């Protein structure tokens, strides 16, 4: 049954063979390294089976860095190919595969894990909880995401990559026009990763609604927690649509149904609607947590509380609501009629209103503040003007009649990079520089951080600003080349140069991680930024049970006011009680493996093998339902010992031990 194993590797191209060799060498190096240093046990106990939200968060972030690397290489390859007219560096097929994997990876496997990673690390700490509501489910979320991401990533060397764009429009993505298995990867891998995301959404809704520290009412929650809550709600509302769309896609491609085909009454427009019904909210799923990060960073480094907290909350809720009723703006040109297009133009432009409110609130948070130019704050500052450019061009695109001239051009590509890079990537960098000491107990180097910052921001603008003008000159997206007579060449060249600067910036960031890991000072305080929210109240790196005693919250910016009252580091030994914690489990990792294998067989249309592998999934579910292990207790002694390593118990002074 099934797979022609000798044909699964995509061969021929030196670029691909090079990558295949590199992948094999890396895997060998990792296996040898782990064996040599006898780290297998450590890897299994500390990471693969962990249910600790902080470690899961770190694994998400690590995946994000890795995927940014992959997606960034894709971006650079595209920029190299279009640097000069009529280049033959990549052929059409390769270019098509690369922008497809770039788009999917950047949004689903870079932006999402970065943000979900930060949510994982920070949110339970911000609300004074010991973990998320369902720790094992959280691990399952991560491992399913990781399984989907890896399955998607091997496509370019095993079997061929999807090549129908990140939107995977039908009928192009169907068997009638794409008979290779590349687009099966899209349907299957995103389904597996999407399941994980959906579980994350549910998990965080419950966590935030049920596990806040005593006294923390909804309107006393830190802004990042608020945005996480709303994001999770959007996830739960929107991802099932994608689940269904991908399932129908799978039926179409694997079993010959005709939901979206040209023939037998399929409807391409149905796919476009389903895709964007999920796709637009998805954009806000990545942008809202980013807004939350900026809110925290700006308040901390302006040394003021957030301006207009209530209107901030109302704005997020408003944006979330509007994000569900704007999807048609992605295909105004489908000719749904002027009434429909007018409606969606208005809803889309209205999003600018709450977004504008947020921008002004951030500006007025800084007003009268004392603005400290830490690297984290620099990212937040750069966000404002760059995002405004993304925003105003978004409004221009929202005007349906005008969109008839922008649609599918590089103007659009420039716009969404101006939203996604300042909105998401800057936020992720701000969040990493800001929370790094909380995660690891040492800071990222601020000086390298500033090199990283300037190179990245300048490179970003040089790369994407020319694309606005290219679009207005008539250059379309997704075209692997253009003629010399078109007059596009100079701007394309500038843009390619910009992308090199951008890449150097990212390289500095990677070097910064390495440098800081090796050399940074280890004895940073638990509150190095003099910050405002509860996560800074506990040790850095955070002890596995988070808080020895759950703090009591009296107002917004709870930790800030506790510091004012001088009540933070004093801990009465008598208050310490034993703590209940969840046990590690290997089941989520096991599920990821069987999901990955099942997915792989499905991609290669080996139905019987997939069915056999799917039995493994059922076995996992059965094992889970007979799992009566409901955790363990941390003894008072152990808590006391841990707490003494970083603070003075019983009314000591506030000096922190490293």
């Amino acid at each position, binding site marked *: 049954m099934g797979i022609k194993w000798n044909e699964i590797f995509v061969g021929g191209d030196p670029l691909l063979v090079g990558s295949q060799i590199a992948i094999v060498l890396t895997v060998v190096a990792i296996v040898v390294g782990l064996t040599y240093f006898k780290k297998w046990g450590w890897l299994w106990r500390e990471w693969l089976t962990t249910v600790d939200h902080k470690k899961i968060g770190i694994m998400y972030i690590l995946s994000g860095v890795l995927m940014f690397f992959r997606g960034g290489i894709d971006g650079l390859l595209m920029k190299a190919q279009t640097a000069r007219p009529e280049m033959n560096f990549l052929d059409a097929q390769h270019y*098509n595969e690369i922008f497809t994997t770039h788009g999917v990876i950047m949004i689903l496997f870079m932006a999402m894990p970065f943000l979900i990673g930060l949510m994982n690390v920070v949110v339970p700490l911000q609300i004074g909880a010991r973990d998320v509501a369902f720790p094992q489910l959280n691990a399952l979320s991560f491992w399913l995401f990781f399984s989907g991401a890896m399955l998607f990533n091997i496509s370019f060397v095993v079997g061929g990559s999807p090549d129908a764009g990140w939107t995977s429009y039908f009928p192009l993505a169907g068997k009638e026009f794409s008979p290779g298995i590349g687009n099966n990867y899209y349907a299957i891998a995103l389904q597996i990763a999407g399941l994980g995301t959906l579980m994350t959404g549910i998990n965080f809704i419950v966590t935030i609604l049920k596990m806040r520290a005593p006294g923390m009412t909804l309107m006393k929650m830190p802004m990042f927690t608020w945005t996480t809550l709303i994001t999770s709600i959007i996830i739960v509302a929107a991802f099932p649509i994608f689940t269904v769309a991908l399932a129908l896609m799978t039926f179409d491609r694997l079993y010959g149904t005709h939901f979206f085909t040209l023939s037998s009454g399929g409807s391409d427009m149905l796919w476009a609607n389903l895709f964007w019904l999920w796709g637009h909210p998805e954009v806000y799923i990545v942008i809202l947590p980013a807004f939350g990060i900026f809110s925290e960073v700006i308040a901390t480094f302006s040394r003021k509380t957030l301006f207009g907290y209530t209107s901030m909350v109302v704005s997020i809720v408003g944006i979330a609501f509007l994000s569900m009723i704007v999807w048609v703006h992605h295909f105004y040109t*489908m000719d749904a009629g*002027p009434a429909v297009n007018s409606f969606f133009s208005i809803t889309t432009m209205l999003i600018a209103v709450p977004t504008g409110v947020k921008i*002004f609130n951030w500006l007025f948070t800084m007003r009268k503040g004392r603005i400290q130019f830490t690297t984290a704050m620099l990212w937040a500052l750069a966000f404002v003007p760059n995002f405004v450019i993304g925003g105003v061009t978004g409004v*221009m695109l929202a005007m349906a009649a005008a969109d008839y001239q922008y*649609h599918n051009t590089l103007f659009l590509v420039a716009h969404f990079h101006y939203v996604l890079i300042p909105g998401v990537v800057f936020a992720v960098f701000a969040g990493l520089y800001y929370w790094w000491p909380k995660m690891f107990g040492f800071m990222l180097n601020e000086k390298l951080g500033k090199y990283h910052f300037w190179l990245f921001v300048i490179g970003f603008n040089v790369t994407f600003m020319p694309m606005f003008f290219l679009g207005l000159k008539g250059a379309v997206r*997704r075209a692997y080349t253009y003629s010399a007579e078109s007059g596009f060449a100079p701007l394309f060249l500038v843009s390619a140069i910009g992308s090199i600067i951008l890449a150097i910036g990212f390289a500095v960031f990677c070097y910064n991680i390495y440098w800081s890991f090796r050399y940074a000072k280890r004895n940073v305080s638990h509150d190095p930024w003099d910050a405002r929210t509860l996560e800074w109240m506990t040790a850095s790196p955070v002890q596995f049970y988070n808080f020895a005693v759950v703090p009591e919250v009296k107002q917004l910016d709870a930790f800030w006011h506790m510091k004012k009252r001088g009540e933070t580091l004093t801990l009465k030994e008598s208050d310490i009680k034993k703590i209940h914690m969840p046990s590690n489990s290997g089941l989520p990792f096991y599920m990821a493996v069987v999901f990955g294998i099942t997915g792989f067989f499905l991609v290669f249309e080996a139905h019987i093998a997939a069915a056999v592998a799917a039995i493994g999934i059922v076995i996992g579910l059965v094992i889970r339902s007979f799992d009566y292990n409901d955790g363990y207790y941390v003894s008072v002694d152990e808590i006391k010992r841990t707490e003494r390593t970083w603070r003075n118990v019983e009314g000591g002074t506030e000096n922190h031990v490293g």
Partner: protein
Amino acid sequence: MKRLFALVIAGLLPLLGGCEMVVFQPQGPAARSITELINWSIWWMLLVVVVVFALFAYIVWKYRDRPERQGEEPPEEHGSTVLEIVWTVIPILIVIALTIPTVRTLYDLEKPPKGYENEKPLVIHVTSADWKWIFSYPEQNIETVNYVNIPANRLVLFKMTSASTMQSFWVPALAGQKYTMNKMETELYVVADRPGSYEGRNTNFNGRGYAHMQFEVLAQTPQEFEKWVQEVKQTAPKLTKEKYEQLLLPTHLGRLTFVDTHLQWVNHADPHSKTYTNPELYRGHGYQGKIFIREDNYKNSSTCNDEEQKALESDSGGEHHGH
């Protein structure tokens, strides 16, 4: 600092100025109304950018941390209802200012432009295929590939559909774009102000041949156009059904001209028309999956009730694949 800025601007100008931005050089009423809308929006957006940037620069500069501010404690300040209302209402007003002309333009674009309302349009059927554009003139009984001649100053109605995937018909100098979809028809009114050659292309990605899926719109004087029609009628070969089916295979073609149109055999806009797909011709590199046979495919003779078609299929059967 200022001089540096001026230098940068001076360096950038040739990059931008040297190039024509087609969206700002409309050559017909439809494109012109969109350009006007775009210009209107740009002024408002510039206003937003200037206000926010200025406020941003002022605040960041004025309230930056300096050594002498060490230890200073910024005031507690939770918000200001008045200010928050101000920056809610002003954006709403801007949205209204943009909505009104947008809606008006949207409705206008569906109709013939001003001054042409009572004119009988020249109807041209547009069929997008992989990877070429096919234009049929039912009145003139002519079919062209990858170029379309139109009389200038005359109302043209494009009735658009696709023989393959969803594609988008865009002639930026003359009008905004619209999708072409199989078994569906979309319509676009176009007028060219004066004779000239305008570039058109597909903007909706449709696979390997997408980048080169361009065509020329040549607007001629009515006399030239008439002359061209007569010339074609005398010199161009006749379009046969077999030839037409060959045209639809996934290929790049140069310009072609025929007498007769394919509309006599199939109009792809018709919801009950046959499906013209050839999955086996799309096999590229990588691992190949299963292809499903459809009964409404044009090659499937089992549902074919037309005697003549059957005969045609049988004696040209092998040829379809040799490309």
